[in-house]
Every structure is written in structure tokens, then in C-alpha cells.
């Protein structure tokens, strides 16, 4: 038990921070989001092909680095710091997690290899137009016709879906003799797939809506995929939380910096307790999130080392980290606007970008309320009541 980063891990962080501060400043982000892709493809190429980030937590057998969630979380945290809006979270954080949880197969490994090399990016289609995270919200169906599996229905809130090459789709399995959820891979150029980019309140990252019209899957990755999907999404929650952690840390620093310089009443406003104490509370939230993210990342690695004994802890840690980071990021970003005063409310200043990202990530992969209810079940509040 040593709950601190190794030298290697620190080095990964330093390299990432240096690279991103040069190539992915928020000023740059404001330009990149106006591109049709919503991000800079050259930067994405550099991240994946040159730096090999997409494969950091993918098995060496598929061309990845074979490191773990802790290292992936470091990269996501650093990307969160600059609100990076390219498909890293979507592909390396979410879709890859689903792929790795699905049954091992050559097809799957071929897909993973394409992601690891940076040749392709993937996106996960896991919910319908409600955007909710429960099973009922899934609006895609896998049917069988003439012995062929086909996708019907739709999926929405597909993060970075408009530029993805591969989709990992969670669908209700309606094939003969099947039930529950299936995990399906499809290519972006496949017949019977409509992709529409959706503009969002969060300016930093677009969604897509997919419509399936008898779309043939490239592969059915998991029959009876309900548990695979659940575990994969739990791991994805940890990935998202790592990104949220980085973002909330930046917005805290931004606010500390501003309030240390802005003068009103002849004093820097950071000398007023109303400001100081709010900042202290923001820091408490950030540090709590940090503890949660690092721990949850370790839990993912423990789970992958031993899935049978680690599943309960994974479910708990994933819900916990989503609750803490979603509620925390929104609180911190909201406070940042308040402490900036008028300027914090303007389009030109960066605080609103963080605030809107925070709001968007509240619903992504499940609202905190949903996950608290999930925790209540996990810790035994459902068990039948009786006399003591």
C-alpha cells in the first residue's frame, strides 16, 4: 500500500502538462471549437500517433503501452485542466473501457489495435434522447432478420460522435432467445447509419445523434452484455472524473489568481474572508475529488488484475467518484463565476467554459442523484427491513 505516484507516473504528468500547455491552451481551444471537427485533428494525431496516449492503458498485445488506469487518469486530468475537447475521453476513456470489458475475440482485439495506434477513434452510444444512464434510456435495439443481426432505433449524446470512426453501441438485445443488453461495434461509414452533430450549451465538446436503420454491426462484442456494459461504464466514470478533477483544479487556480490581483476598496479582494473562505471551500472540494479519483483509478487496476474479487469495490468507487466530481466540479465552477464578479459572466472570459463543461458532465454517464441511489443499494439499504 503506497498511495502516492511513482517517479514514472510523475514524469507522464509533467510531459503531458508541458505538451498541452504548448499545444492546447484555452485560447487555442476557442479557435479549435469553431472547426468542423470541434477540435484540432493535428493535435489529436500528435497525441495518439506520436505520444501514444490513446494506447496508454491498452494491452501491449494490441500495441498499447500496457499501463493502467492510474496513468490514463493522469492524462485525462491534464486534459481536463485545459478543457481539451477532442475525442480522447470519448475514445480512450469511454469506448475503450467498454471494449476491454467485452468478451475477448479477434475482432475486438483488432478494434482495440486500431485505437491503440491512433489510426481510429471510437465513441460510445449508450443512451437515447433522454440522455439518462439507466437501462431504460437505451434506445437502440439489436434485432435479427433473416439470420442477420441489425441495429435499429437511435442513440444520442454520443460524445465526439461526429468524428468517430468506430461506435461502440449499447443496445437492447431483441434477437431470438436473447435478452438484456448487447454490446455492438459499428463503423462510421456503414450503411444505414445517420450521424448528426448536436450543438450543446457546453461549447468545448459536441455530441452526436445516431439513427440506426437496419444498420449491420461490424461485430457483436458481447451477448448478454448487461454486466459488461455496466462494468465498462463504471470504468468510464472514473475516466470522466479524472478529467473533471483537472478542470476543477484549473478553475480554482484561475479564481485564486484573479482574486489575488483584483483590487476593490483599496484591497485585493482575495484578502476578504468572504472570498478567502469560499476559495478554501473550493479547495476542499478539489482535494476530496483528487483523493477519490486517484483511489478509484487504483481500484480499476485492482479490478482488472482480479475481476472476481474487485467487482463490488469497482461499482462503489465508480459511483462515488462520479458523485464527488460531478457535484464538485459544478460547485467549484459556479463559485468561480461568482468570485470573478461581472467579468466571470462574460463570453470573453474563460470561467463560463468551465461552468458549462461542468454542467454537461453532470448528466454524462449518470446524474449524481442516480449514482447516490445506486450507492444506497450497494451498501445494503435495499435489504428487507425487519426486527433487529
Amino acid at each position, binding site marked *: 500500500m503506497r498511495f502516492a505516484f511513482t517517479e514514472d507516473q510523475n514524469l507522464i504528468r509533467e510531459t503531458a502538462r508541458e505538451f498541452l500547455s504548448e499545444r492546447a491552451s484555452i485560447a487555442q481551444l476557442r479557435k479549435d471549437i469553431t472547426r468542423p471537427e470541434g477540435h484540432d485533428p493535428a493535435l489529436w494525431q500528435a497525441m495518439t500517433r506520436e505520444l501514444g496516449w490513446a494506447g496508454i492503458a491498452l494491452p501491449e498485445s494490441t500495441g498499447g503501452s500496457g499501463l493502467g488506469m492510474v496513468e490514463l487518469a493522469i492524462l485525462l486530468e491534464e486534459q481536463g485542466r485545459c478543457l481539451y475537447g477532442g475525442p480522447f475521453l470519448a475514445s480512450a476513456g469511454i469506448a475503450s473501457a467498454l471494449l476491454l470489458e467485452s468478451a475477448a475475440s479477434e475482432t475486438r482485439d483488432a478494434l482495440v489495435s486500431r485505437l491503440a495506434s491512433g489510426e481510429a477513434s471510437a465513441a460510445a452510444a449508450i*443512451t437515447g*434522447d*433522454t*440522455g*439518462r444512464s439507466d437501462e431504460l434510456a437505451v434506445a437502440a435495439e439489436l434485432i435479427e432478420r433473416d439470420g442477420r443481426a441489425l441495429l435499429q432505433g437511435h442513440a444520442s*449524446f454520443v460524445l465526439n460522435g461526429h468524428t468517430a470512426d468506430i461506435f461502440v453501441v449499447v443496445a437492447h438485445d431483441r434477437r431470438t432467445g436473447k435478452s438484456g443488453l448487447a454490446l455492438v461495434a459499428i463503423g462510421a461509414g456503414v450503411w444505414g447509419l445517420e450521424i448528426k452533430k*448536436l*450543438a*450543446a*450549451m*457546453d461549447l468545448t465538446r459536441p*455530441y452526436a445523434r445516431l439513427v440506426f436503420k437496419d444498420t449491420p454491426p461490424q461485430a457483436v462484442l458481447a451477448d448478454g452484455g448487461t454486466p459488461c456494459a455496466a462494468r465498462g461504464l463504471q470504468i468510464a466514470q472514473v475516466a470522466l472524473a479524472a478529467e473533471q478533477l483537472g478542470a476543477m483544479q484549473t478553475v480554482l487556480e484561475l479564481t485564486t489568481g484573479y482574486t489575488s490581483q483584483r*483590487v*476593490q*476598496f*483599496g*484591497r485585493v*479582494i482575495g*484578502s*476578504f474572508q*468572504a*472570498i478567502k473562505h469560499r476559495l478554501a471551500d473550493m479547495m476542499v472540494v478539489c482535494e476530496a475529488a483528487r483523493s477519490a479519483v486517484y483511489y478509484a483509478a487504483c481500484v480499476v487496476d485492482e479490478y482488472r488484475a482480479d475481476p472476481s474479487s474487485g467487482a463490488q469495490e469497482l461499482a462503489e468507487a465508480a459511483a462515488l467518484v462520479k458523485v464527488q466530481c460531478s457535484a464538485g466540479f459544478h460547485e467549484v465552477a*459556479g463559485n468561480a*463565476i*461568482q468570485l470573478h*464578479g*461581472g467579468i*466571470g*459572466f*462574460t*463570453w*470573453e472570459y474563460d470561467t*463560463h467554459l468551465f*461552468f*458549462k463543461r461542468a*454542467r*454537461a458532465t*453532470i*448528466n*454524462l454517464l449518470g*446524474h449524481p*442523484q442516480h449514482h447516490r441511489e445506486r450507492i444506497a443499494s450497494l451498501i445494503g439499504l435495499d435489504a428487507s427491513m425487519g426486527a433487529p
Partner: protein
Amino acid sequence: MKIRFTAAEEAFRAECAAWLNEQISGPFADIRGIVSQTFRAEQRMEWERALGRARWSVIGWPEKYGGRDASLAEQVIFAEEYARSGAPGRVGHLGTELAGPTILHFGNDLQCERFLLPIARGEEFWCQGYSEPNAGSDLSNVRTRARLEHGPNGPEWVIEGQKIWTSLAQFADWCFVVCRTEEGSKGPAGISYLLVPMKQKGVTVKPIRQMTGDAEFNETFFDGARTKAEYCVGKPGEGWKVAMGTLAFERGVSTLAQQMTFRNELDLLIAAARENGAAKDPLIRQRIAEAWVGLRIMRYSALRMLSRATSGSLGAEALTYKLYWATWRKKLGELAMDVVGAPGELCTDEGYGLADLPYLYLFSRADTIYGGTNQIQRNIIAERALGLPKESRGDR
């Protein structure tokens, strides 16, 4: 202490409701229910002229200035019916609610004669020149300067400086500008309250885009702008008192109209919750109930505040009012997003169009900032109502 309206008052309610509904479902149907402050401004200014013609624009004012000498109860009733009809927020509200009452209370006869009727008739619109880039929370740190010059048009104030967060400046004919008229003065001393025409060469208005995508607020630059020497409210150098008086009018009957807007927003939220099933969620139910409680309390507090205002004193409920509603609305915005769920995250068009509830969510983040941040409001409450020590300044 009674809360029931008399039969005569209920008759008045019927009269104004009938007129409002006829107008808003008839000639002015296009502007019904508009939320944004800037949308369809021209039509709304036309609407405000129609109000003026029918003497419904400022019913609490004296008849000779376009009002009806209406009682408090009548003003309460009108505000309620106005909002109930779906009539939009007023482009002229800085004139009818702030400039007008200030001139009526602090101005001289000449100023009353010159300015009040055009406000009442919707012929002249106003904006407010208070905040500056370095005078936000610290309002008295005014750097905009004015000096008296004797030129071909007689004595005139010449104004230099920059104001910020001047909402509706793009539509305004006049601005009440707080500026420093005594060289070397500091803080509240040496400030004057000038009425300055906006449509002149020395005034430039530059919109500030906000996080909502809209631009209600502006920067306003005064670069040799001029106004007549006689358009100074109160004595030169004693404008701070007038400026603070203006702020007190913000706690007037207009709060009731604002509340009706809030009520429309809450109704919208409830409708959304019923439609998408969020109303079945016990947590959402608690939060909606809490919002409903807060809104009711705002109404009761406003009535208490107004009933007392007729007796001249300003109670604790008036000092707490801004903090209360701003905090309430911010929470309402957060609740709204949880009610609408992920679909509320999507834009309705490519131009960053947002549905009403998500728009409310974003806009409400400004409520706790403009017009005195929540932090400033807490200082005011603690110092004025509870008598706690003043904050120490760093500079004097």
C-alpha cells in the same frame, strides 16, 4: 394587518386585467412571454408607448406626470395582472422604476417637468451609469469625471470616462451618470448625479457578450459627452446620496412584477417536470416545493416592505430582499437543469439558441452579481441592519 383586497380594489383588478389581456392577446400578441431583455425591442418600445397613452405605465406617479396617483394596493394589483397577462419585461424600466422616482424625489421642478412625462409616455428610454471597470462592488471608486464648461450653448457638463454593465444602453435616450466633479476628491464625496443624453457624438456603446450568448449589458464610453448644467440632480458634489436613493427604489413595486416573472419561470419548470415525469421524483418534488416556498415568501416580504415603505422607514426585510431573490433564482436555475435533464444541454439552433429554462440557468448566475453581489449584500445587511463593524478599506 390584513391581506384581503377590497371590492373596489378587485374591480380595479378586473379593469386592468381586461385592458391588458385585450392588448396582449390582440395587437401585441407577438411580444407575449418574451424572456430575453433585448428580443423584439422595437415592438416592445411601441407597447410601452401604448401603456403610456392609456396611463398604465406608471400608475403610482402623480397624474400630472402621467400617473394615476394609484394606491399601494392598486399598484400591487396592476403588477400582478401585468405579469399574469404575459406582457414582457419593460425596456423602459430603468426610467420608470429608477430615473423617474429619483427625479421625482430628488430633482427640482424643472427636471420633473422636462423628464417625467416622456418617461411615462414611453417616449424616452433610460440607462444607468454606475459601475466602472474598477468600481464594481466598490461603487464609490468612481473615476468618470465631469467638468463645467461655459460654451456657446451656455454652461454644460463635459464628461470623460467609462461605464460598464450599462444594460439597455443601446436603446436608451438618456443615462443617469454618477461621476466625479470635484478634482482630487475620493470616495462618496465630490460625486455628482448627471442626466446625460445618449444620442450624441461623445457617447459610444459597445455591447458585452455574456455567457448566455446574448448581450444585454454594455460598456459605455463618455468621450467629451455633454449635458446641460441644470441636468444635475441634487447639488453638484452631493450626488452620492441621490445615487443611493436610486438603489432604494429598486425595492419598490417593481419587485412584484419581477416576482411574477419568477412565477412564470417556476410554472414553466413545473410544466416541464410534469411532462417528462420528473415531477414523480421525490427529490425533485422537494426542491420544487422549496422553490415554491421561496417565491411565496418573496411575495410576502415584498408586501411587508411596501406596506412599511408607505410609512417611510426601511426595514430589515428590504435589506435582505436582493440577496434572497438572487439566491433563490440561482437555485431555481440549477433545479431547472435537473428537471429538464440532458436534453436541456442541447442548443435549439446553431446560433447558441437555448430553451427558456437552460437560458434561465445561465442568466441566473448573473443575478447574484449585478446590482451588488451577494457578498456586498451580506455586508450591507450585517452593517446596516445588525450594526456590525464596517469592512476596513485598504486605501483610506
